[in-house]
């Protein structure tokens, strides 16, 4: 085995701390049972952020409309549960499939143009879906949201309880499964081509990588994962509202990813934990104005530099290696 192969493989191996981390995550609903619902939310948001990382961190496409897929998966799963059958796993599959189809349709919109154009088009898709969900009120309940979504027991045995422990484990399991899958994807040759496209699109094209096709595939994949996150959200809360599609959700998930670090799957997970805990703490102090502090945090984050924020000792040394 030669050196490049070795170095590529090194990245894809599981580190010893990773199983420990996951064990801790799964133990968390038992250790702090009163916080099971926030653990559930963290797992969902983490999954959402990881899916954005696929397109932002690994291919460098700035998207402001990722909530489109989140909401699509969410509404599909909720409607399926309400109108067809309440089994959560089938509903999850329906959510994923719907979002994937939408992602495939939208993947044509991101291939051309500059950052600004892509930003606008992704934002526009999200807004169109928001508008649709608002206007098709006979189906989605409009601005009041889709109520009366009742979930059947998971695998026929585990009921969703009020404390939210089943929900937390359910979301964590889906997160783990998709995480392992995506981890495999980004360390495969396919993942390597994505990074090549991100780093230098022209050169990637020159060495024979079909850039547009790869972008379409990864965008579709990311859409499917975001749909899964949305489906989990509506299934565990039993409620779907326009809020799923809203702009601030896309902005939040971008922020989460940037806090945790892009181009590194655990970045989404780490960012979700930090963001949700911060949001929880801030909104209990200032329920109405917590967005101010989030905004301030963003501004400081960018001004200080994303790499430097996690290395406080470099803040006051000008220049240097960073």
């Amino acid at each position, binding site marked *: 085995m030669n050196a490049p192969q070795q170095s590529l493989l090194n990245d894809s191996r599981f580190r010893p701390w990773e199983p420990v981390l996951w064990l801790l995550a799964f133990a968390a609903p038992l250790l702090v049972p009163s916080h099971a619902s926030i653990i559930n939310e963290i797992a969902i948001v983490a999954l959402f952020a990881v899916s954005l990382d696929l397109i932002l961190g690994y291919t460098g496409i700035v998207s402001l409309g990722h909530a489109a897929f989140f909401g699509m998966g969410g509404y599909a799963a909720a409607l399926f549960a309400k109108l067809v059958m309440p089994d959560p796993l089938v509903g999850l599959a329906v959510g994923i499939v719907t979002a994937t189809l939408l992602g495939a349709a939208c993947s044509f919109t991101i291939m051309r143009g500059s950052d600004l154009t892509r*930003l606008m088009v992704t934002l526009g898709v999200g807004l*169109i879906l928001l508008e649709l969900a608002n206007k098709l009120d006979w189906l989605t309940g409009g601005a009041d949201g889709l109520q009366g979504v009742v979930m059947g027991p998971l695998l026929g045995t585990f009921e969703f309880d009020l404390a939210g422990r089943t929900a937390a484990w359910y979301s964590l399991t889906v997160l783990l499964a998709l995480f392992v899958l995506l981890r495999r994807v980004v360390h495969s040759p396919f993942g390597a081509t994505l990074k090549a496209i991100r780093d230098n699109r022209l050169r990637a094209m020159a060495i024979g990588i079909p850039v547009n096709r790869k972008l379409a595939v990864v965008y579709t994949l990311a859409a499917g994962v975001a749909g899964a996150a949305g489906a989990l959200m509506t299934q565990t809360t039993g409620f779907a509202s326009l809020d799923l599609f809203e702009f601030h959700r896309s902005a939040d998930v971008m922020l989460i990813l940037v806090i945790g670090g892009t181009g590194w799957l655990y970045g989404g997970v780490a960012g979700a934990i930090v963001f949700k805990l911060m949001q929880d703490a801030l909104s209990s102090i200032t329920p109405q104005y917590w967005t101010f502090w989030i905004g301030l945090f963003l501004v400081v984050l960018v001004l200080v530099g994303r790499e430097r924020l996690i290395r406080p000792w470099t803040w006051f040394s000008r220049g240097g290696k960073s």
Partner: protein
Amino acid sequence: MLTILFDGIAYGMLLFILAVGLAVTMGLMNFINLAHGAFAMAGGYITVLLMQRFGVPFLLCLPLAFIGSALLGGVLERTLYRPLYHKPHLDQVLFSIGLVFMAVASVDYFVGSTQQIIQLPEWLKGRTELGSGAWMLGMGHYRLFIIAVCAALTVGLQYVLGYTRFGSRLRASVDDQRVAAGLGINVNMVFLTTFAVGSGLAGLGGALGAEVLGLDPSFPLKFMVYFLIVVAVGGTSSITGPLLAALLLGIADVAGKYYIPKLGAFIVYSLMIAILIWRPQGLFVRKGGK
């Protein structure tokens, strides 16, 4: 029908004034500034507060709104924006979203979240009607006023950019900063002035538009999309591009909301996506421009 066209034009003109500053910062300085709506909101709130608390007449408020937002823009450019000109687009997006969040929350905190109402002077409240039947043209005086102000501003801007010393300095700084600096142009000053004027225009637009668009703390988020559409569709290399895009958008939006109210803002977004897929650099781009 003509009335709808007229209202659409007034709306488009308003959007143009709101967005033209953004076209300059985004197109010329290559900075994705999502916080542009916050300056517009600043202008709107300056007007409302001056009129309600101090009884300043409406016409005097407009220049004050311009100056206030321009000062705010100038200060922020010098302190916060300048270090970010050469950062990646993602950083600029995050930074300006952060500013928007802060602006929304602070206005909410200081002024309250209720919608603000502007008392127009009597002579702007009327309405003139021409013709009759299907071709009747009803012109609200306030809309006429908006169109007049915006047209004057457009001509003025075009003149400044195309025929004055400052305009040529700006274009030189944009095309090649280093060479411009070498020729003795104070690039930082030029950019600072441009940014301040752009923010001031946004503020003026906010003051003018408060009556038409409504003014509450969520203003920057609600209308951010419209500004961005104007700029993205119009292309950023000239003043005429955004102007035509704003008119198109205004007319499409007003007509769509009138004829097919069920669809709402749907038409505008679909139109934008279609145009952007067709011409990713915007509709009106000169060949060889940046």
